[in-house]
């Protein structure tokens, strides 16, 4: 939360600030000390925390300081220019500015720029730039003219980007603005024309800039009261050409357009800017902090005594001339935290950041909790991820495997994969498997003839893959109609979306019996139902009695008259499996898969009616098989459960009832299902009746355990 703290006034000495305010406030070599240059003759060094001046230097009467004093961070000296051309350099011990080092230059200086970590630069009014050392070596050297006549420098700023100094300055000529970017590592000067957009006749009042990795973000406050942003590339594409830059609106009507006094803005951090000016034409001047990301006003402070329209920001302090005195407002932008508001102190986060691999291996501890990562880091991660596949392998076998995937033949890949799998679980096993599958699938997509089925089967069987890791896998298998692979996926993947499940179901129902014969489908969920055919007769009796369902129960209306004419057929039909065992195995895989009803229903509507009928018949058959034994389960390893069967019957009917009910061949099936439901209801109502008796029995049992107020018991201690 950005917050302005209580302001305090710095000057105990009255500054001789003219109507145009101060010349400048600059940082000194100590974090808490600042050089304040007034528009007359004086430079004062302030210690902000103590709110007192540490030193004050003045030039002689008649001389006038023309450029704010700065600190040379490398030598810890102060530099000031008076009378446009005379350079003075002194340090803390010096008392009189007249007696310090002096150099008279051949051209007029616009500004001396100094930042930590590099030598100061001197920007001349004609646009030329010199390093201080080079200049002092020959003060009278000739200074070239860079900008044209009548072009005036309005604003300048000096950055360090990637340890290279970059200077930007803005010039104005007849209402047109130009930006110059000077790179010092390559000594390239690039000129840009700033296009003002529709609002051609607005005047830019104030500039500020922040620097990103690639761009200088130049923010300008126009006389219409809006803040615009212009992105200037640090590395110009074509330095020779005169390029144009378009500005975009960042914040609208931040300050009133027609203020008497100046307005100013300064960037506080990536997301916050401070604006000095009146919000409305009539009101008093305000210092406001805006969040440009969310375009919200964070905080504001009224400055009733008026300002000079100048604003400086160093460290955590905002400097401005409020009335006649220099005012400092400490500014803080803390990360607001819910935990803080809720009363829990946030623990210190470990500063190390971690690059997330594409496939997270949850088994091996990575040492990173859910750490806090700022947006910059996550952006870096995103960039990193794109090139992850090629960068990933560190371990030789996996690296080799990945390169194999890209080029070699199917046979060879298979051998390599097998080799890798035989190596047993390396720590990055999961990630390598993930990368391998991704690589294989990418190649499959690129080359339609390439389909390393055996490899894929092996990889799926490692149990480390899931649908979300490689969604393409099932897509390709669906295209290739590879039912075996699909079955495997359905069995192994926990997170298959309903649409894909349904697509699988479509294929399983539509694929021809002959093509099924060739496939090698896992049959473990299918019990060989034909085995039980020989003692079918006898079972028929028991099934009815045990689980309450009797297809013969003849309470149904006359609709099943027709049906009763051929009861022989019916029993035959209901007791022989309507699908071949391989198809049954595939359908069982569907029955086992997880789904959510809401998402599945719309997809089920797309299945052709005869396939629905077939599936229903199969489900009905399964139900009959279920009710054959007392435990209501199917024989075999991992068979579909009764609940799964019932749920799918309901789902299919819900989705397709209107279609199915119109089909003559489905009529008998529907009648059977109707009877099934009816008999279920009667069973449950009977069970409900019994429940009361059971409850009484339970109560009796409890009473036996409750021994009353007094009892004698036997206790044995061991």
């Amino acid at each position, binding site marked *: 939360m950005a917050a302005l703290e209580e302001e305090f006034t710095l000057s105990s000495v009255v500054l001789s600030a003219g109507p145009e305010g101060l010349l400048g406030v600059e940082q000194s070599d100590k974090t808490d000390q600042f050089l304040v240059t007034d528009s007359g003759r004086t430079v004062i060094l302030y210690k902000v925390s103590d709110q007192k001046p540490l030193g004050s230097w003045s030039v002689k009467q008649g001389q006038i300081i023309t450029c704010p004093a700065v600190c040379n961070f490398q030598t810890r000296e102060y530099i000031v220019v008076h009378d446009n051309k005379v350079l003075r350099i002194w340090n803390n011990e010096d008392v009189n500015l007249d007696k310090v080092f002096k150099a008279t230059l051949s051209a007029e200086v616009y500004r001396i720029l100094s930042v930590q970590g590099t030598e100061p630069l001197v920007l001349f009014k004609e646009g030329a730039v010199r390093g201080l050392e080079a200049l002092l070596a020959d003060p009278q050297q000739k200074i070239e003219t860079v900008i044209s006549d009548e072009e005036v420098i309005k604003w300048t700023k000096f950055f360090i980007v990637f340890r290279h100094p970059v200077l930007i300055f803005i010039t104005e000529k007849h209402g047109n603005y130009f930006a110059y970017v000077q790179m010092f590592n390559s000594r390239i000067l690039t000129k840009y024309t700033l296009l003002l957009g529709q609002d051609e006749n607005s005047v830019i009042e104030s500039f500020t800039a922040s620097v990103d990795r690639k761009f200088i973000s130049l923010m300008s406050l126009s006389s219409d009261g809006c803040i615009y942003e212009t992105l200037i590339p640090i590395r110009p594409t074509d330095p020779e050409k005169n390029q144009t830059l378009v500005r975009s609106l960042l914040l609208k009507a931040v300050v009133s357009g027609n203020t008497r006094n100046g307005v100013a803005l300064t960037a506080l951090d990536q997301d916050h800017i401070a604006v000095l000016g009146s919000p409305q034409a009539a009101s008093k001047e305000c210092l406001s902090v805006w969040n440009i990301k969310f375009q919200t006003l964070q905080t504001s402070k009224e400055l009733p005594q008026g300002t000079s329209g100048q604003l400086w920001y160093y460290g955590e302090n905002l400097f401005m001339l409020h009335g006649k005195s220099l005012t400092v407002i400490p500014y803080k932008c803390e990360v607001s935290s819910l935990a*803080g*508001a809720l*009363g829990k102190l946030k623990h210190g986060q470990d500063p190390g950041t971690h690059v997330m691999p594409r496939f997270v291996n949850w088994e091996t501890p990575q040492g990173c909790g859910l750490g806090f990562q700022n947006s910059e880091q996550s952006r870096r991660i995103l960039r990193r991820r794109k090139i992850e596949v090629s960068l990933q392998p560190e371990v030789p076998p996996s690296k080799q495997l990945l390169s194999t995937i890209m080029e070699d033949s199917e046979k060879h890949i298979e051998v390599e994969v097998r080799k890798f799998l035989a190596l047993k679980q390396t720590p990055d096993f999961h990630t390598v498997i993930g990368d391998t599958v991704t690589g294989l699938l990418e190649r499959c997509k690129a080359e339609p003839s390439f389909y390393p089925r055996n490899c894929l089967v092996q990889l799926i069987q490692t149990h480390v893959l899931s649908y979300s890791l490689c969604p393409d896998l099932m897509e390709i298998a669906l295209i290739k109609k590879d039912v075996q692979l699909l079955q495997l996926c359905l069995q192994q993947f926990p997170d298959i979306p309903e649409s894909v499940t349904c697509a699988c179901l479509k294929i399983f129902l539509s694929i021809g019996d002959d093509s099924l014969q060739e496939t090698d489908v896992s049959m473990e969920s299918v019990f060989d139902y034909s085995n039980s055919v020989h003692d079918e007769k006898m079972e028929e009796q028991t099934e009815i009695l045990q689980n309450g369902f009797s297809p013969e129960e003849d309470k149904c209306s006359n609709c099943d008259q027709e049906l009763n004419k051929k009861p022989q057929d019916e029993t035959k039909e209901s007791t022989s499996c309507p699908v071949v065992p391989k198809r049954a195995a595939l359908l069982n895989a569907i029955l086992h898969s997880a789904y959510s009803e809401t998402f599945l229903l719309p997809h089920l509507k797309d299945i052709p009616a005869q396939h629905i009928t077939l599936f229903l018949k199969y489900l009905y058959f399964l139900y009959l098989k279920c009710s054959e034994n007392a435990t209501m389960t199917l024989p075999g390893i991992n068979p579909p459960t009764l609940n799964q069967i019932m749920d799918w019957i309901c789902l299919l009917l819900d989705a397709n009832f209107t279609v199915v009910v119109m089909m003559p061949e489905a009529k008998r099936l529907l009648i059977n299902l109707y009877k099934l439901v009816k008999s279920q209801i009667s069973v449950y109502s009977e069970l409900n009746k019994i429940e009361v008796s059971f409850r009484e029995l339970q109560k009796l049992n409890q009473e036996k355990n409750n*021994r009353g107020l007094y009892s004698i018991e*036997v*206790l044995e201690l061991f």
Partner: protein
Amino acid sequence: MGEFKVHRVRFFNYVPSGIRCVAYNNQSNRLAVSRTDGTVEVYNLSANYFQEKFFPGHESRATEALCWAEGQRLFSAGLNGEIMEYDLQALNIKYAVDVFGGPIWSMAVSPSGSQLLVGCEDGSVKLFQITPDKIQFERNFDRQKSRILSLSWHPSGTHIAAGSIDYISVFDVKSGSAIHKMIVDRQHMGVSKRKCIVWGVAFLSDGTVISVDSAGKVQFWDSATGTLVKSHLIANADVQSIAVAEQEDSFVVGTAEGTVFHFQLVPVTSNSSEKQWVRTKPFQHHTHDVRTVAHSPTALISGGTDTHLVIRPLMEKVEVKNYDAALRKITFPHRRLISCSKKRQLLLFQFAHHLELWRLGSTVATGKNGDTLPLSKNADHLLHLKTKGPENIICSCISPCGSWIAYSTVSRFFLYRLNYEHDNISLKRVSKMPPFLRCALQILFSEDSTKLFVASNQGALHIVQLSGGSFKHLHAFQPQSGTVEAMCLLAVSSDGNWLAASGTSAGVHVYNVKQLKLHCTVPAYNFPVTAMAIAPNTNNLVIAHSDQQVFEYSIPDKQYTDWSRTVQKQGFHHLWLQRDTPITHISFHPKRPMHILLHDAYMFCIIDKSLPLPNDKTLLYNPFPPTNESDVVRRRTAHAFKISKIYKVKHLVLLFWIVGSFVISKCNKLHNWKIRAPSVSMQRTWIVGNKSPF
């Protein structure tokens, strides 16, 4: 180990009374608790929350306020309009001072500890000076319109806040005049119908007054301006109590819904210096009104109508896992309320105002472990003996032969002679008790029922000879010169030669009854004695302390026994030391001298001295009988502690040997338990059906 017949007695319907006030003493880490019947108990939090001392209740003394002053002095004030000071050494009431202001609703001690402030029914706030041996009225503050229900001093002692009905007054102590009157909003859930009672106030050093009221609000006031700063609505019912931590960084409030809320002063954002009060944690450990709360440096303490005293540790303040890190719920007194006549199989139950005598049933059947045997004769309720007068019973005892019953209140000692003729019982009171037998803290009969031992509150031990229907005073052991410490625990050897007596802090004294002189003193230990008994034959004194240590001291040899030294050298099992209720009774197996039987509220245990002691690696609690293990394994894993926790769900109050069988008695069966708020406090009555706290 052996088979036992266990009499499970569930007809001891003891209901403790509700807790009204708690007062925490930071200096001695003690907690004073007053109950609605006027009982005041003192818990030593350093000694595993052992209930060290208690002052019996009195019907006419409803304690409304309790506080520690001048370090170790305990004061209470109540609806009888008196301030009382308790003598923590002699365990009696030192004096009572009428303040002449009607019932007292609140009391607060000044930050310096030298002044007492009481708030009365007539709206007066009275200041008392605490003198070394009494309190002295100093002056009245400005009289308010209605009763003063809560009081709080500013930590500097210059101002006080007083909560009344519908408003809070801030007084200047020097002038005694009210400088602010802050009106509390009556609105309760948007409807203003009742008066708003300010149940509690707390004055912080920055001038903030926190109030809790009957509209369910916790409010923050600025005492300098008399304005409301912040309001938290936390309950639909009354918020009845508040306590602030000494550092003023957290406080706790209790509501009539049984909830306790913890408020903490936390920074608004991380690492900012601006802080605000935030409701952090709710706790629901009570079923009824939380009438009172206290805030110790490491725990939140709450008590209320449901009779539980709950000590909830603040986990962020607890550094090591020990006793302080566990939630404590104390419901029953840590003293014996049952005595037993072994010969006649009688049990005497002690209630606040009556005694009950029961005869145990019998059976002829046998069975295996866990069986319930058919009864040939059920238990009989023989006698219901009501006390006269408003005072609570302090202690009671039935003689081993069953023909004597003795009990004592604060002002009288009663001795009854019982005659058994077939199924009829006749009761005859022994009149003309000598004046020194006025108030007994503990009564004990000798094994042959010929002698009566009485520990009086003056520190003296009296021996009375009983013969026929009469008695004769034999001797009085006077306390050592200079000490007036009352003896709370007595134990007599089965041969009648030795009498052990223990007070609350000093060591155990052993007297020779035959020669009527002090035999020896067992060295004092850091923790109070919770139970002791003298073993038959060997005359070894077994002492249990509140830190779960058990010592065995040979009286004839005047030294600890070898077994006790071995135990101390090896140390007890860590699980044994982690139990949280004190051992309340020790007994012996008449035929197996190597066995010591002891129990606490949740388990009973037989220590077999002949078996090796368990170390920390062995299983202390044997969950199942090792039926399928070979004898070798069984022998190897066997250790001295045989623990049964079958009865843990209920509260074990007593365990006795009766000719080869146990008696286990519990407090339970509290269905249809009615909890009634004191009728004077507010016009409310709760009737809670089928809601037993156990």
